Structure formats: structure tokens, C-alpha cells
């Protein structure tokens, strides 16, 4: 495997060619916050929380979808990207109803812990809080669109790992909603296998397990699952 050498925060780092900046940083324990990326899934670069500055480029680039190149000089926590990350997370909090004290995933939520990590104690923007639907027609799980941040982890995990492609996104802009099949109730979906991977992949309390407040979020063995699936063929 060919290797490339780059500088991240003043440290010289060796990465495999084809690795993303996020992978290269993780390999040497440099933390880059992110929301929409999950190891093993195709990078989406939608949340823009993992943006980093690369010398010679006018704008910050997302670390999850940018390839590590030889001789790159990367800064992951400049004042500019820190304030941008902060504003992005504040925008997410203002977009829909993210009231942590009454959420099933309180203290177990990636959005909440990211806000804590970035030191967000208030939101400067107008709370939009649209009244979005809650679908609890599925036997074991439920989806609360009020908590959804549209990271599309559920869409990707269902398509790429489970191979069911039950989830997709309807509408556009602020009217985007995650839908099952052709906007049918989740319980009526004929493609859903009920595996629960989407629930584990969801960073917030949008997808939850009924009657349980300690759903294990975050799939640790996603990459292994993907390798296993590829070995078996389509």
C-alpha cells in the first residue's frame, strides 16, 4: 500500500493513499468532530462539522470526504473553523425541536455531546421548531422527525449495509423528511427487515427503540459487516 505524508496541526502524519483526512487524523489520535460520517459508510459531507483548513485552499474542506494528499498542511482547530462548527451546531439546534430534557436519548446523543464539547450554552438563532410527524407504527422502533438532523446515516446504513434501502429523503431544503419506502408508515413498509441498524446509526433521538431509553447507538463493527457483505457478493 502506497503511503503519503502530510502535516496535521504541525505533526507529520503518514497515511495510506486514498485515506480521507478524517481517517488520517484518527489514525494518529487527532480528534475532528463530525456528525454525519460513520466509519464504513460512504462519506456524505453534509453536516460540515468536520471542516478543516488546508493550506493553499481558500475555503475550509470537509475532512470526511477529502483525500489525504502528499505534502498537505492541515489545521483542524483554527479559530475560523471552530466558530464555523459552533454556528453549524447552533443552526441544527434552531432548525427543529431539540429539547434535550424530554428526549429519549438525553445524555446519549451525539448532537448533545458535540454541543457540550464546543461549549454551546445558548443558541443565537430563531427557534423554527416546525411541528413534524412522529411515526410509531413499526413494531419495535419509532421515528420522531422533530429530532432528525438529516444526516442520512439511516438512509446509507439501510442501503449500503442492510441492502434494503427502506429509508430515503423526500422533499428538499428545510422541507426534507426521511421517509420509509414511498412515504408510507414505517410499520406498513414491505422492504424493512426490522434489523434496527438505522436506529443504532442515528446520532440523535430521531430513531429510537420503543420502551427502552438505553439504545446502544453507534455501530462499532460496521466496517467488518461491510467486508462480510462484499465477500458474499451482491
Amino acid at each position, binding site marked *: 500500500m502506497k503511503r503519503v505524508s502530510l502535516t496535521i496541526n504541525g505533526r507529520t502524519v503518514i497515511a495510506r493513499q486514498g485515506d480521507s483526512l478524517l481517517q488520517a487524523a484518527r489514525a494518529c489520535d487527532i480528534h475532528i468532530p463530525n456528525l454525519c460520517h460513520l466509519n464504513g459508510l460512504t462519506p456524505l459531507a453534509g*453536516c460540515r462539522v468536520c471542516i478543516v483548513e488546508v493550506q493553499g485552499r481558500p475555503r475550509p474542506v470537509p475532512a470526511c470526504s477529502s483525500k489525504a494528499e502528499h505534502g498537505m498542511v492541515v489545521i483542524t482547530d483554527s479559530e*475560523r473553523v471552530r466558530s464555523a462548527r459552533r454556528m*453549524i451546531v447552533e443552526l441544527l439546534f434552531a432548525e427543529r425541536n431539540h429539547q434535550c430534557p424530554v428526549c429519549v436519548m438525553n445524555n446519549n446523543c451525539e448532537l448533545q455531546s458535540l454541543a457540550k464539547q464546543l461549549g454551546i450554552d445558548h443558541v443565537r438563532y430563531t427557534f423554527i421548531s416546525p411541528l413534524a410527524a412522529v411515526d410509531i407504527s413499526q413494531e419495535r422502533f419509532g421515528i420522531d422527525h422533530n429530532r432528525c438532523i438529516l444526516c442520512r446515516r439511516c438512509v446509507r446504513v439501510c442501503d449500503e449495509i442492510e441492502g434494503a434501502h427502506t429509508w430515503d429523503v423526500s422533499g428538499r431544503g428545510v422541507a426534507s423528511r426521511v421517509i420509509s419506502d414511498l412515504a408510507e408508515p414505517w410499520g406498513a413498509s414491505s422492504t424493512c427487515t426490522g434489523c434496527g441498524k438505522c436506529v443504532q446509526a442515528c446520532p440523535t433521538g430521531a430513531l429510537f427503540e420503543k420502551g427502552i431509553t438505553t439504545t446502544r447507538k453507534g455501530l462499532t463493527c460496521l466496517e467488518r459487516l461491510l467486508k462480510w457483505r462484499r465477500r458474499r457478493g451482491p
Partner: protein
Amino acid sequence: MNDKRCMPDVAHFFMRFCQDESCGKCVPCRTGTQQAACLLARITSGAAEPGDLDQLEELCHLMRDCSLCGLGMAAPNPVLSTLHWFRDEYEAHIRTGHCPSGVCSCDEDAA
């Protein structure tokens, strides 16, 4: 476009357009255009506060720097250029709650 148009109102029109056209994939464009349109609506209705202009400018820079595609990067341009050339019109809306061109609804509310 002539001297009878209100620049914050023009910027509001373009921001509403970009909000409708945003695909919703990236956060700065999806929610940034929505919040910027909110702020511009407040300015044009005469309900804005002095800090709102700085917040609007900051939000526009975020959209320009961090959006995924050209729509989000170009969305703040009407606001940034009108802020650059016609800042006094924005300030008049905020300071006096009055539209110098007589276009915005803030004057109707007062009457």
C-alpha cells in the same frame, strides 16, 4: 432596479428564493438560508435589533465558506453586496423602524 427599490427587501427576495431552491443536503445552506431569510424578514418588518446586522453578516460568511455546492456559496451574495453598498438602508430600518424607500411593510404597521 432603480432608486425606488428597498435593498433589504431585494436581499430578502433573493434569500427566500435560495431557501426554496436549497436541496437540503448540507446544513449551512439548508438552515442558513432559512435563518438569514428570518433575519431579513425582521429587518424589513421593522422588528430588528441592533445586533441582527452583525449576525446576518456572520451567517452569510458561514454560508459562503462552508456550503457544499455553488448554490449555498452564492446564496449570501445579494445580502453581502447590498450590505456593502447600501448599509445605510439596513441601518435606517433597524434604527428608526422606517423604510427609506417606502417599500417595506414596517411603515404600514406604523400607520
